[in-house]
């Protein structure tokens, strides 16, 4: 199997046809995953992973139940990946394109998501990163459906990255309660602790 990076250079090559074997070898040999291109790869679940995927292209990869610590997805294209039950701690998702990925039951802890594209991500029962305008806006966008006024609230949070929770709570908006009730449905809503943005 030949693994290439986004510039089409060969990053890793072996005689195996198995993606699982190849991935295990690569992790063992500490091959750089920076700018790597991987489709339909299955990362070992319940394992701790500390990898730099910055600038990588990861499509339909499976990070199910993986513990991602200090992992960087900065500027990567991670479309339609499966992060269900994964645990992301101190991960860098800045400018990552993680559209349509599945974050069901995923836990985020101290992750950065500046300018990440999260459109269409599945966020059922996700422990959201409450400092993330992008995730909060997407959660509200999905709950808003086609209601223009509700979409405006979602957009307001998305584009006002210099505003924090206290600014949002200070505005006099009839849909503020709706927004809070939507966010409250997520498992780790910081009840009473609004200094999280």
């Amino acid at each position, binding site marked *: 199997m030949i693994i290439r990076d986004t510039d089409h250079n060969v990053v890793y090559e072996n005689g195996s046809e198995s993606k699982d074997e190849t991935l295990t070898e690569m992790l063992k040999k500490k091959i750089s995953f920076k700018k790597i291109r991987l489709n339909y790869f299955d990362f070992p679940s319940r394992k701790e992973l500390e990898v730099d995927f910055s600038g990588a292209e990861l499509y339909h990869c499976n990070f199910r139940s993986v513990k991602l610590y200090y992992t960087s997805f900065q500027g990567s294209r991670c479309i339609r990946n499966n992060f269900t039950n994964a645990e992301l701690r101190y991960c860098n998702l800045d400018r990552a394109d993680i559209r349509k990925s599945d974050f069901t039951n995923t836990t985020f802890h101290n992750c950065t998501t500046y300018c990440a594209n999260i459109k269409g991500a599945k966020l059922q029962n996700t422990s959201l990163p409450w400092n993330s305008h992008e995730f909060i806006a997407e959660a509200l966008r999905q709950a808003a459906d086609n209601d223009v006024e509700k*979409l405006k609230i*979602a*957009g307001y949070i*998305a584009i006002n990255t210099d505003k924090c929770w206290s600014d949002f709570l200070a*505005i006099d908006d009839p849909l503020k309660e709706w927004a809070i009730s939507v966010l409250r449905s997520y498992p780790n809503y910081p009840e009473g602790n609004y200094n999280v943005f």
Partner: protein
Amino acid sequence: MIIYNVDGNIVYENNSSSKDDTLAEMLEKKISFKKIILKYFDFSNKEINYMNFDRAILNRCSFKGTKLQSVSFYDTEARYIDFTNANIRDCCFRKADLERSNFSGAKLQACNTAGAYVYNTVLEGTMLPETSHEFMAEVLRQAAGDDIEKVKVAAYIAFNENKCWSDFLAINDPLKDWAVSVVKKYVSLPILENYYI
């Protein structure tokens, strides 16, 4: 002078200490500008066609009065760039970070700006591509000042890339006329009637 790319490799080297001489040489020798790091370089009043600046770092460069045709700035870090009076046609700014760049008097025609970060760009007398959610939202955000309801209209446009002008014109919003009057200054409205943004 030594010019590096973002991977830390040397792209070009000469004995000159002048940025202008180096740039002229590089343009003459058709050196690839992909992923290049060029800060404070002066491209003003040049004619640049079919050039690729993808993933480059071009902070504080000057493209004052430059004619840019079919130039790609995909995922380029292009903060504080001076595009004053530039004529920009068929260019790609997808995912480009254009924060605080100056587009005063510039003409942007048929440019793709999907996912571009245009926060606090200077847009006085700029002719903007009417398909750009990012620029439309930014002109509205700047015009809105601290008026939350107006900021929400800007946010709605920024956040709903799947919606087009006809969708926006169909909504019943008291600030719709305000938004159209602001946008009118930057795009030609006859197109706006049937054009998808």
